[in-house]
């Protein structure tokens, strides 16, 4: 479980995070949603230690990551898997080398053991016979799957995903969303996904945190999204005609 208390982050005079409190539960897909510029990416990068917040506490299973020693930080980093928006695969390395890299750096496995781990991870994301391909030879959806496989190859406790289905067609996006949800349940990890894709919210939003102007404006589940009267959330979620119709049908179905 990840607990965030009163998190502040500024860049110069611009205060991006203005005191966020949030809890992300283990074994669930936790979503951070909000409009562009709401502070989602800064929040996510603060959680994974790429940004240093000025104020606040981030508990990873009761350990405050902002107080970690260098050694603790090194250990904690190996408990984290991250799927970046653009996949962030090392483009000079093959798929196999990309997955093997963290194993080579942080484990004492033999090459055979590492290969076994790599192949297990690739099978888990339904990607076979791609070991020797370079990232550039893969489609966007396949690159995302490799990124997920690389994120889980070290058996992380926490999985973070930044816009995991951006740039993907709706069908592939749903496959990726479902894959992340399956992995979350199967590995019993705490997954935090940063998204503004409403399909993802409705598909896998077990816990949703809505950010607005650097503050948490609302939280709930995907079912709660239909019921809420919070204007900021409804304006964001029902900005498209399709979701307005979905909500209308949901409300009519209830009554």
């Amino acid at each position, binding site marked *: 479980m990840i607990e965030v208390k009163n998190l502040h982050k500024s860049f110069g005079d611009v205060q991006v995070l203005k005191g966020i409190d949030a809890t992300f539960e283990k074994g669930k897909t936790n979503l951070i949603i909000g409009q562009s510029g709401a502070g989602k990416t800064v929040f996510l*990068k603060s959680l*994974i*230690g*790429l940004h240093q917040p000025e104020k606040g506490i981030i508990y990873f299973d009761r350990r405050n990551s902002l107080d970690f020693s260098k050694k603790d*930080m*090194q250990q904690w*980093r*190996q408990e*984290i898997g*991250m799927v*970046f*928006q*653009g996949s*962030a*695969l*090392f*483009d000079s390395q093959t798929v196999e080398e990309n997955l093997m*890299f*963290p194993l*080579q*750096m*942080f484990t004492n496995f033999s090459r055979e053991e590492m290969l076994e781990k790599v192949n297990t991870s690739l099978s888990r994301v339904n990607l076979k016979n791609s070991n020797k391909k370079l990232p550039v030879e893969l489609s966007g959806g396949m690159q995302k799957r490799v990124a997920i496989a690389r994120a889980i190859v070290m058996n992380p406790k926490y999985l973070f995903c930044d816009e995991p289905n951006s740039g993907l067609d709706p069908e592939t996006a749903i496959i990726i969303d479902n894959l992340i949800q399956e992995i979350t349940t199967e590995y019993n990890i705490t997954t935090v996904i940063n998204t503004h894709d409403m399909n993802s919210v409705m598909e896998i939003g077990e816990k949703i945190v809505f950010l607005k102007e650097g503050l948490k404006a609302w939280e709930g589940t995907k079912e709660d999204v239909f019921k809420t009267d919070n204007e900021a959330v409804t304006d964001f979620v029902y900005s498209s005609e399709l979701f307005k119709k979905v909500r209308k049908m949901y409300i009519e179905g209830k009554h």
Partner: protein
Amino acid sequence: MNYIEHVGKYFLMLGRVFNAPVRTKVFYQTILKEIEDLGLKSLGIVLFISLFIGGVIALQTAINLENPFIPDYLIGFATKRSIILEFAPTFCSIILAGKVGSYITSSIGTMRVTEQIDALEVMGINSLNHLVLPKIIATVIFYPFLITLGMFVGILGGWLAGTLSSQFKALEYIQGVQLDFMPFLLFYSTVKTLLFAFLIATIPSYHGYYVKGGSIAVGRASTQAVVWTTIVIVLCNYLLTQLILT
């Protein structure tokens, strides 16, 4: 950002670069790969330019030495001195600053804008140490060898040019090359090469690592890296000459 701030940030970057690597085996493999990318792949251009510039230096010297009291072997002597003192270490380093410097900036810069550097940091890897230190070691190890080879080929180029154009006699040229050999000048040249190799690896890395934006920013950073590496090489060349030779 002002220049002093850049200089400070550059030295802070070096502070993070010089750390023990996480895995020595992976580190050695990376160094070998960098030697191939930054050194071996520059061999052709260095040898090509050395050959022809050596030829031009010899021909220019021969054409301008019209006084019958000046012996022809001085052409070989002047060519050798020019190549060892200035052409091979400085001129070749400037060529390498363009070729290798732009490669380093664009490769690290692309890693930055595509979040590959963030991916390394999230894994718990000191990205500067992982990306820059192998480049420094590769260039510092390999460039003295490369530049020395450039010296030989440059002198050979002078000999070939004179022989083919009949501007001077080959034997006199060789006599000039052998005349007054001073090992100290090779030391001076090697010191320059080592410093320039370090600059060629670090200044472009700095520009690539701290790039912000997209592909245009990476392109701009590459240009800045080449310009600044060249400027610093030229300044250091003057300072080292003042310090060592005068």
